[in-house]
Every structure is written in structure tokens, then in C-alpha cells.
């Protein structure tokens, strides 16, 4: 009976790719669901949406969305998306990838795409760890956390992603957790309609690895942390929005207008093409 009814968002998924590879209780499914909801509510032409991902658990998301999609090398989805968007500006190009992919190996592409104000949307699933390789610390792993490569506790400071994104010039920056599905969906909708570079950090649970190493071994325990630590505060100073065990500031941080790279490129091309 369930098969007959179908899932309300199944048209956004490649059904022959389901079941997905993600662990039970992983936050990636929630992010994918919110993305599908956003596409549905905006009624976007799916033939003109391209989902690009890198390597890692969430990197597999591009294989599940029923759009044109590309699964790039590790760290390079934004650079790949740059080529797609500039070659065909009609396409809505969305990068969905992880914290390690976007901010460790791929950090350079992120800061420069944001600086250029390239017309793409970047959604980062921040699970604080390299999940696919079994749980090593990454650029967002909180200080003193336990991972397979911090057996004595993490001594590295974590990136504050919303601060980084704002400083690099993003026109839209928001952070939500997988607990805030409605807010997250609205943020994705907003980002998809912005001109220029928009960034959404989704604090996501990895109970199977990060949780187990850090005394939150069930999805519920991780979500409980998100619930207790989250404070909704719109347009607060992103510099002060570090994620700590006691506080996860969520909300919109940046929502500004400025000419996108695509707009300036079109204007420049017009000038050049008119040149005698």
C-alpha cells in the first residue's frame, strides 16, 4: 500500500538509486528532504537544475536527485560549478557538499567563488567529521572533540563557517540544524532566489561516528544537543557565532544585494562585443 501511495517528494529523487548509502539516523536525508521541499515549493523547472557535489557522505547526494548532477573530485564541486554556471547561466547550479570537502581540501574554491559573487548556491552539511573515511577530525571539528585521529582530544580550532562566508562576500548566509527543517527549507528557497553567492550551513548529526566518539551515540542524543544549544538569532554578528557545546547560533546572518559575477560578466561581454 505504501508503494502505491508513494512519497510526496519522490519526483525529486532517482528512485532506482534508493535505498541510499547513508547510515540510519544520519542528517543527510533531512537535508535532501528540505532541498526537495524547497524545489517543490518554488516550482523550479527540474530540467534546469544542476546538483554538484564533492566527495564524502553527503557527496553522494548528487546521485539521488532527479536533476542533472555531477559528483566531482574531492574538494572541487565549487570550481566545477563555476564552469557550468558561466557556460550556461540559465542553469540553477547548486553545490551540496560536506565540511571537509568544502572547507579543507576545497577551501580555496569556496573563498574565491564567494569573493567573485558567483551565482551559485552552496549548502554545506557540517557533521564535524570525515564520516566516509571512518571518523577523522576536520576543519569544523570542535576543540577537544574525540575522533580517530585526535585520540588525545582535538587541539585545532574549528572554522566558524558563517563568519568565513560572510567575510568572503556572500550575499546570503544562514545556519540551521537538521532540527530546524522548516527554517532550513525557507533558507534554501531564499538562497535559490538570490542573485549571487549564497551559503547555508546545516549543522547535521553523525551519530554513527561523531556521536559515538563524543557521547552522543544515538541520533536523538545529537538532536537533543542541537535543540538545547540552538539559539535563533537573526542577523547577529557572524564573528561571534562559533559553535560551542553550549551554543549554536542559528538564523540568517547576511542578506544583502550586490551585483553578481554573472551580471558584471554580461555587461562586460556586451561592451567587448560592441567594440569595433
Amino acid at each position, binding site marked *: 500500500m505504501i508503494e502505491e501511495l508513494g512519497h510526496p517528494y519522490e519526483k525529486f529523487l*532517482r528512485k*532506482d*538509486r534508493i535505498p541510499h548509502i547513508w547510515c540510519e539516523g544520519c542528517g543527510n536525508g533531512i537535508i535532501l528532504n528540505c532541498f526537495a521541499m524547497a524545489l517543490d515549493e518554488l516550482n523550479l523547472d*527540474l*530540467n*534546469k537544475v*544542476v546538483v*554538484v557535489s564533492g566527495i564524502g557522505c553527503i557527496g*553522494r547526494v*548528487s*546521485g539521488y536527485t*532527479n*536533476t*542533472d*548532477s*555531477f*559528483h*566531482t*573530485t574531492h*574538494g*572541487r564541486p*565549487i*570550481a*566545477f*560549478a*563555476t*564552469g*557550468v*554556471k*558561466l*557556460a*550556461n*547561466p*540559465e*542553469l540553477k547550479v547548486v553545490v551540496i557538499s560536506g565540511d571537509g570537502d568544502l572547507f579543507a581540501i576545497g577551501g*580555496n*574554491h569556496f*573563498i*574565491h567563488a564567494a569573493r567573485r559573487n558567483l551565482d551559485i548556491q552552496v549548502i554545506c552539511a557540517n557533521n564535524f567529521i570525515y564520516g566516509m573515511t571512518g571518523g577523522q577530525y576536520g576543519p569544523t571539528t570542535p576543540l577537544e572533540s574525540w575522533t580517530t585521529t585526535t585520540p588525545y582530544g582535538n587541539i585545532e580550532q574549528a572554522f566558524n563557517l558563517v563568519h568565513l562566508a560572510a567575510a568572503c562576500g556572500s550575499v546570503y548566509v544562514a545556519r540551521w540544524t537538521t532540527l530546524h527543517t522548516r527554517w532550513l527549507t525557507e533558507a534554501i528557497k531564499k538562497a535559490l532566489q538570490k542573485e549571487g553567492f549564497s551559503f547555508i550551513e546545516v549543522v547535521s548529526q553523525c551519530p554513527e561516528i561523531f556521536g559515538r566518539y563524543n557521547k552522543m551515540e544515538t541520533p536523538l542524543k545529537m538532536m537533543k544537543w542541537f535543540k538545547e544549544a540552538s539559539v535563533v538569532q537573526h542577523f547577529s554578528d557572524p564573528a561571534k557565532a562559533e559553535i560551542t557545546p553550549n551554543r549554536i547560533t542559528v538564523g540568517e546572518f547576511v542578506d544583502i544585494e550586490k551585483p553578481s559575477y554573472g551580471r558584471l*560578466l554580461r555587461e*562586460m*561581454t556586451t*561592451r*567587448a*562585443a560592441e*567594440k569595433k
Partner: protein
Amino acid sequence: MTNIAIEKSKVVRSGRRFMSGDIACAEGALAAGCLFFAGYPITPATEIAEHMARRLPEVEGVYIQMEDEIGSMAAVIGASYAGVKAMTATSGPGFSLMMENIGLAVMTETPCVVVNVMRGGPSTGQPTMPGQQDVMQARWGSHGDYEIIALAPSSVQEMFDLTIEAFNLAETYRVPVSVLADEIVGHMWERVNIPDIDSIKIVNRKKPTAPPSNNFAPFKPEKDLVPPMAIFGEGYRFHATGLTHDERGYPRTESAEAQTRLVRRLCDKIRKNRDRIIRVEKAMLEDAEVAVVAYGIAARAGLSAVRKARARGIKAGLLRLVTLWPFPDEQVALVARQVKAIVVPEMNCGQMLREVERAAKETPVIFLSKLGEEPHKPDEILDAIEGVQR
């Protein structure tokens, strides 16, 4: 990248022109239909980027200067999947950074052109000096098994012609194609005959003939082993990945059968079409007893040496390799069976030498190595030719 028709004269500046190799390369790319360049400044290839930055907007194309060569190569692949002919240009250090994504282009069968104006390495080496040290890297630089195409221009005219050829081969076989130039060919100024746009042979990738459907298989090959290429935005809603995949484009990470099938086809589509791909140029080889086998700038000194040898009554000839990869095994073997010895001048410590030795079998191969500023002098090659005759 609009549909507005661009005046042909803006795309191809036909006529006799005087230009550098790097500029000829850029003009060749435009003539081939290239509308996207992503790159990063690097000596001695920078002039290609500079010229593309000026010229591409005139024809409604896009130039973007990326943050590094890794991003440049990724952007080129993205642009190609969005349906546009795309290229980058670099030199040794940048070529090294591009290697992982060149492998991605191989795996996702992305038509694209990578120009490498070779300088002296390893590492930062000698940025303003010529070299031919990236020949093996062009073949084997990315991890895994694959076949690839590389062409070696030896004149400014060929920088124009072979860049067009590189795009045509890339579009035909859905493979990244390298133009392996060197600093001398890149920076040298010579006369170039740029033909009328309508007389330039242009190849565009095969497109799927079937309309979009749920069963669309974007990596299902045709008889030539090359799949027609769907592009983003046309409704096919297909998936491509650097993972081993099936004909649907879906990951098959645990199947030996899928790995074997895909990797063999990626190799075979080049190997089985080698006769259509490989180009060599022969000079005075008919009755030759000594052959010079060379490519790029070294082939020019080689030709001069062969002429001088002939003037002295020595039966010498030149086999110039225009295609470096796939390696022209049969062509070299044929020459080897005819001559007493082969002379290989190369601006490295012996890279193509290995391939020539392998193909030449019993025939002795004399190696003339050059490193640094100065290319081979014709007389140095002539000495080697005369040494064989003595």
C-alpha cells in the same frame, strides 16, 4: 554564451598574420569553437590566457581566471558538461596540479583541451626556458589506467592547426587532449596562414538521438566505443561521477565486472582508433639509412640536420611525431626496420626515447639530451648522423 550570431570575422581573423605561438594557439582555439577558458597565469603560457581574456568576450565567450590550476581544470570540465567547448593553458607546475581532474575528465569522458607550454622542471625549474620534460606526465600523470591524446606542435602555424585538431579529437573521442608545446614554440613569432572560417574542419561531439527518458544511459557507447554526450539543461537529468560507473552513470564501486568493462572501454576507445588519431610527418625517409625521430622544437633542428646530411651525400631522413600519445609504434617500427640507427634529440633526460627504443627493438637508438636554455643545434644532430655512417 548567447545564441546571437557572431560575425565570422570576429571569430577567425583569416589571412596571413605574424604572431607568437601562444597567440596562434588562442586563435586556433577560437577557430575550433572554444567559448570557455579557465586558467591561472604561468610562464610561458600566460600569453594564451591574456589573448583569450581579450578575445573571448568579443565572441561572447567566457574567460575566467581561477584561483589555481586545480580549479581551472574543474571549471573546464564543468563548462564542457554545460555544452561548451572549453580549454585551459598552463606549464609544468600547473600541469601537475591539473592531473587529478584530468583523470576526472578521462573518467567522465569530458571533451576538453589542455595546453602545456613546457618549461624546465622539476618543480619551479626554469620558468622562462624551454623543455620537453612533461611528455611522460602527459601520458601517465593522473592515477589509474587510461589512454589519452597528446599533440606536439613544432611551429607557430602548428600551434594554430593542432589546437583545432586537439578540439576535434577531444570532441570525437570524449577525452581530454593535451597540446604539448614548449617555450620556444610558444614564444616564437612566425608567419601564420589563417584560413577562411568555412574551410576549417570542425568536429562537434555526438549528441544523443533519443529523447530524455527514465532509462537514458549517458555512458552507453556506440560502435566506435564513444557514448553520445548529453549536456546539462536539456532534460536528460543524468548523473556523472568520477567513481566507477555503469552505462546509466550510476556508481558501481564493488563490481569487478563494472570496473573491467569501463576501464577497458576508456582505453580501447583510444587504442582501437589509433590509426585515425595518429599523425606523423616524414621527410626524406624513402631511402634513408639513418633516421631522426623527433617532435616539437627539436624536430626543426632535426630537419635541418637531415638536409645538411643529404647535402653531404648521407641518406638521412626525419620522422616527426605530431601525435605523441597514443605513441606511433607502427610508424617508428617501420622506420627502425629500414635504417641502421635512429637519432632521438629531446629536451629532457630521455622520455620519448624509451618509447622509441621499445618500438625500434634491435635497431640502435642514439640519444641527444638537452636541458636548459639552448635547443639542439642542427650540427649536433648532424654529428650523430655522421657517426652512424662512419
